């Protein structure tokens, strides 16, 4: 006599797992369409061969070495860094020159209210008015047109005489003033 073990009751999770697995397995084992492989190969053969490589006439064997590559890379880095530094050197001093200087506030006595940076103008008395002298228009004559006159003896005598007469006139005037007083 063979005793049969009672079947274990499956949990809902197990049933769900079985069901899901069964369904997904059906999809995973779906038959492949007939002739798919041939179609794929034909399609791949149709694809153009677009890769073309230019062969340089001057073949530099060294360029293919790692050392040359590193040197070229270093050169590029140096160029970039130099260019960057050049731009920075051009722009930074200009920025400093263009910066506005803070105006120095005039020192005010005491610690009262400030004038909020207003410039103080000193009060000045009205002084004697200076008569405006009309400036003579500049002489535009050329040296060639008007030659410089050489001082003559007559002119010198005239000048001395007029100076003397002036001096005498002044002394006469002084004496008249004193008498009037």
């Amino acid at each position, binding site marked *: 006599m063979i005793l049969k073990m009672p079947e274990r009751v499956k949990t809902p999770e197990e049933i*769900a797992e079985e069901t899901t697995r069964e369904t997904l397995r*059906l999809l995973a084992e*779906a038959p492949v369409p007939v002739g798919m492989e041939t179609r*794929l190969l034909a399609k*791949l053969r149709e694809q153009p061969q677009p890769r073309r490589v*230019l062969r340089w006439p001057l073949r530099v064997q060294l360029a293919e070495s790692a050392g040359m590559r590193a040197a070229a890379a270093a050169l590029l880095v140096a160029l970039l860094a130099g260019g960057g530094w050049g731009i920075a050197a051009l722009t930074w001093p200009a920025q400093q020159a263009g910066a506005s200087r803070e105006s120095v506030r005039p020192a005010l006595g005491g610690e009262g209210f400030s004038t909020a940076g207003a410039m103080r103008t000193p009060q000045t008395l009205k002084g004697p008015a200076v008569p405006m002298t009309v400036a003579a228009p500049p002489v535009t004559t050329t040296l060639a047109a008007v030659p410089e006159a050489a001082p003559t003896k007559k002119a010198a005598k005239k000048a001395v005489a007029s100076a003397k007469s002036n001096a005498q006139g002044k002394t006469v005037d002084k004496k008249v003033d004193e008498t009037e007083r």
Partner: protein
Amino acid sequence: MSAGQAVFSNWMEIAEEQVRAVECAPSEDAAVAALVTEYSGTLYRVAYSVLRSPADAEDAVQEAFLRVLRHRDQLAEVRDNRVWLIRIVWNVVLDRKRRVKARPETDDVTEMERVLPARGLSAEQLASAAEHHARVLACVERLPAKEREVLQLSAFEELSSVEIAAVLGISESSVRSRLFRARNLMAELLNHKRSLR
């Protein structure tokens, strides 16, 4: 013309004979053809399990192989061709699925009727089985994307959890935890559906 001048004149202009098409290495083409022969079936099934349309799945496989053709020079660096190809087709499939709107459940019923083994089943039994599987698929579609993807890939017996992790770009422990969550969620969804009926 001196030799130096000749060199520099040639340097500036590229003569016709200097532009040569690199003959595609026949070994690379043969390698791609071998990949098609060996893995096209697996890739089709992976694509079909997500897209559930034979034409769309075939298109996805073709697109995947075209990508392979574009990167055939990297074939030598690939360690596991199968996982690499499944990963490519998986990305293609996900791209396509994002563009396509949600499939109606009736399409799934029709598709499941086509896929179900018809032996020993009457037409009625076949129809009811197809409806049942379509309902399960509808529940699968309601899962979060991460859990759904792991669940769908786990249905492929030939894929281990390590390979699933490699395809999805996650760790193996993540695969296991996502699979656990997916099963629990599926149980909830299926029980809820049963209670509604």
